[in-house]
């Protein structure tokens, strides 16, 4: 029997090469976090040097505050989720720091053009603080992600409620053709971002319960096994309603995201690739119909196919392209390019702004960071021992992957532009906070997954007595 009391090492019999060693890896995380802080604070200093010729005066307080937030997060992870994945937090910290530095740089550029411009970086820092705060709260309060299964239907309804809120007159606002914002006093908030997380939890909870029924029972229809109406019905209704709301709100990027997320989770839960094929076909038809009917979609597709000659509709994407081309391989240098020439560079076009000043090198690095993020989430899903955790981690990971693909693809003219935000980089409070919560969830699930299985403590050889199981 095992006598080990130490946390990490489990020595099996000699020659047991296949034994998985459960390490906490918090030291590795700390090391990577130092690098991430160096990126975040270094970028801020470089922006000041490049744009104004001197390191910003508040570098110490800014750096101190960032370090405080990150260290607080790290301490809480050590305390509450000791076995969690060590790479997620550093990636997110680096991206967030980089985003802050670039938003600050764009602020500087815009201020030169227009002295009345109000800076966006300070509010982004506040939102980051809130995000880290929520991150800590989730990690502390939620000790087992399986508790969320109980909230399946609640999350679903809450999500729908949040999606409908911007349509309510009075608090909903129509910005740039999309009705996805609500204004509570001075604060503006995108409920769709929170709804995204809630829907993943809702779908996962439902699918875990009904996955066998969905996969096995059902009728055959044209070579495809369709599940029974009573199994698929509720979830289909939930999905259609959310899609309908999105289409009415003209937020087509999000509806694409939700559609993909639903399909993927269904595929993973039932292990039937048929869902993807059918879903893919539905998407193509829907997209084509959307192109024919909705003017907004037509403008976006036209701008994607024919950006030149420049018109008001194509101006933004063209400026983004010019910016990235101007960056070339190594970029112009932080503070030395002209990213503020692209309209709404702080949020929609933050990536071309980074591309302009950090070059192709920087862009590839950022894409790789996102890729790593998705990989860690999917890896967590693979090693997670319970189906609910698997589904939630997959759902969150794929949502990230889809969102990053749609956003970066849109601003680099791979696909038409949508209104989605770039996670952790874009200026935007709701998105940032929601994404920090997603990371907290992922860390919670990965902690559970990487934790060594509960040890059995042998108190005696009495086979009938109650066995004491020691959990760490």
């Amino acid at each position, binding site marked *: 029997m095992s006598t080990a009391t130490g946390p990490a090492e489990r020595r099996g019999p000699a020659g047991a090469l296949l034994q998985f060693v459960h390490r906490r890896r918090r030291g590795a995380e700390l090391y990577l976090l130092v690098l991430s802080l160096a990126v975040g604070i270094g970028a801020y200093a470089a922006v000041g040097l490049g744009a104004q010729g001197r390191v910003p005066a508040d570098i110490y307080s800014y750096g101190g505050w960032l370090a405080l937030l990150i260290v607080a997060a790290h301490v809480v992870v050590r305390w509450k989720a000791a076995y969690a994945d060590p790479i997620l937090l550093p990636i997110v910290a680096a991206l967030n720091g980089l985003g802050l530095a670039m938003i600050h740089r764009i602020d500087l550029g815009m201020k030169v053009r227009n002295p009345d411009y109000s800076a966006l970086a300070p509010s982004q820092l506040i939102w980051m603080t809130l995000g880290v705060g929520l991150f800590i709260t989730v990690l502390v309060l939620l000790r087992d992600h399986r508790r969320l299964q109980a909230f399946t239907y609640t999350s679903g309804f809450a999500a729908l409620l949040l999606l409908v809120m911007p349509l309510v007159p009075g608090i909903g606002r129509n910005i740039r053709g999309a009705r996805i914002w609500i204004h509570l006093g001075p604060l503006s908030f995108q409920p769709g971002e929170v709804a995204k997380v809630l829907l993943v939890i809702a779908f996962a909870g439902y699918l875990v319960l009904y996955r066998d029924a969905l996969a096995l029972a059902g009728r055959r229809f044209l070579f495809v096994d369709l599940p029974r109406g009573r199994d698929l019905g509720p979830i289909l209704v939930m999905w259609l309603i959310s899609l309908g709301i999105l289409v009415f709100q003209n937020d087509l990027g999000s509806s694409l995201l939700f559609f993909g997320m639903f399909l993927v989770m269904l595929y*993973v839960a039932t292990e039937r690739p048929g869902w993807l094929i059918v879903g893919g076909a539905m998407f193509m038809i829907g997209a084509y119909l959307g192109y024919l009917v909705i003017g907004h979609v037509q403008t976006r597709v036209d701008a994607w196919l024919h950006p030149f000659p420049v018109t008001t509709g194509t101006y933004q994407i063209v400026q983004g392209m*010019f910016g990235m081309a101007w960056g070339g391989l190594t970029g112009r240098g932080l503070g030395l390019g002209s990213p503020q020439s692209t309209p709404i560079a702080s949020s929609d076009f933050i990536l071309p702004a980074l591309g302009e000043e950090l070059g192709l090198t920087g862009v590839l690095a950022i894409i790789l960071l996102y*890729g790593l993020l998705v990989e860690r989430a*999917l890896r967590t899903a693979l090693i997670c021992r319970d189906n609910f955790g698997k589904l939630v981690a*997959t759902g969150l990971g794929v949502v990230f992957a889809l969102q990053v*693909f749609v956003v970066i*693809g849109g601003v680099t*003219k791979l696909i038409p532009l949508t209104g989605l935000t770039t996670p952790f980089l874009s200026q935007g409070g709701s998105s940032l906070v929601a994404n920090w919560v997603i990371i907290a969830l992922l860390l919670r699930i990965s902690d559970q997954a990487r934790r060594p299985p509960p040890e059995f403590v042998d108190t005696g050889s009495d086979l009938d007595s109650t066995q004491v199981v020691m959990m760490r």
Partner: protein
Amino acid sequence: MNRPIRNLAVACMVLFLALMANATFLQFFEADSLNSLSKHDENTRVKEAAFSEPRGQIIVDGKAVARSKKSDDRFKYQRVYPFGAEYAQLAGYFSRTRLGGLEASQNKVLTGDAPGLFVNRVLDLLGNQPPQGGNVVLTINAKAQKAAYDGLKALGNNTQGAVVAIEPSTGRILAMVSSPTFDPNRLATHDVTKSDSIYKRLLDDKLNPLNNRAIEERLPPGSTFKLITASAALSSGKYTPNSLVPGGSVLNLPQTSHDLTNENHSSCGGGQITLTRALEVSCNVAFGTVGLRLGADALRTQAEKFGFNAHSYFHDLDDPLTSQVQSQFPSNVDAPQTALSAIGQASVTATPLQMAMVAAGIANNGRVMLPYLVNEIRSADLDVIKPIAPKVFNPEAISPSVARQLTDMMVSVVDNGTASSARIPGVKVAGKTGTAQSLPNRPPYAWFVSFAPSVNAKVAVAVLVQDAGVDRNAISGNGLAAPIAKAVMEAVLNQ
């Protein structure tokens, strides 16, 4: 559930690879095209960056006609044009919001971004120096340019016209002036509102001072086109310089009731005159007849050998604000129009550059060279990075023997004919005048093409005076255009 998750992981990897490939395409492969001002002059980043860096010089005969001077304001450098209006259409202009001329078409060299200057940029980077621009050396002959500019200016500031001089053996452009012109220094001011209002005023000016008439204006070449008709005639084998052609005062045009008459409604000297004599006095009747006998197709083929109807053979001034025009010989031509085309009227149009190419081709034994303006590209330290080699446009537009015969005919036009104002003592000058009719209520266009010396020519010139504000009766190729050509040729020959 692990298998689908693994499949998804692969799918996500494919998505991210697509993103990286696309980013590479945009920032590496397409970057040059997007950063090029000639393709995208709306790219403000490139323009503003160019404005704050030490820009390379545009050099003619060792002197800068465009250079950057240090300035005290936030843009650090001020673009200066020491010769002002003389090189306006060539060097162009460089203001905060727009570029024209060579400033635009050679922008990559001048900012130091051109591939050939990469090593220099790296050295600058390592040596902690701001990136220097490369220098552009032109083919222009400074004295010839000055002669051309002064010549047009003497006719009046509002004169509409152009002069192009080419070195026949290489195609180098020795002079290119367009009038009316403007002072690029005024456009280069750092004050954007002022620069914009000056530009707007130039745009609105009915006389189009921003136009480079040498390449952007095409008009009927009139009697100068007879050189092409004569080339076709001599090349066909049906004519020699001594062949007899009708020299009366009237030619009945077939299929119409109109008649073709000579310039001053007089006879060319008799019932039958030699082809040479017809060229000397610029006989419309004679050449109309010749044109009818040769046929429109023969005329067109000959014209195309010299560059008519060609898409574009001159690229050094390509920028979005310049619209070069094509010299044209029309396709569907009936008989009366053939006769008119043979004397350079009807729908035949030519740019001054094209007519200079015709003269240069004849001067160069029938071999037409491609005209070019940029002679060399040099680094900031004036090391030659890229010399430009002459290229051939048409190796034999006319055979060397036809070229010799035509040259002799052109010499006698100067010595015995209408081009007396082009005579240079001690030099055999070959020339041809032209007075092209436009509309009844507009004055005719005065043309003159020539080259000198007649053997081993050093310079071929075409001069167009579109409107000099003089009386209709005082307009003639010989009176207005030839003296300018003479001054340009002398400037080149006396060096």
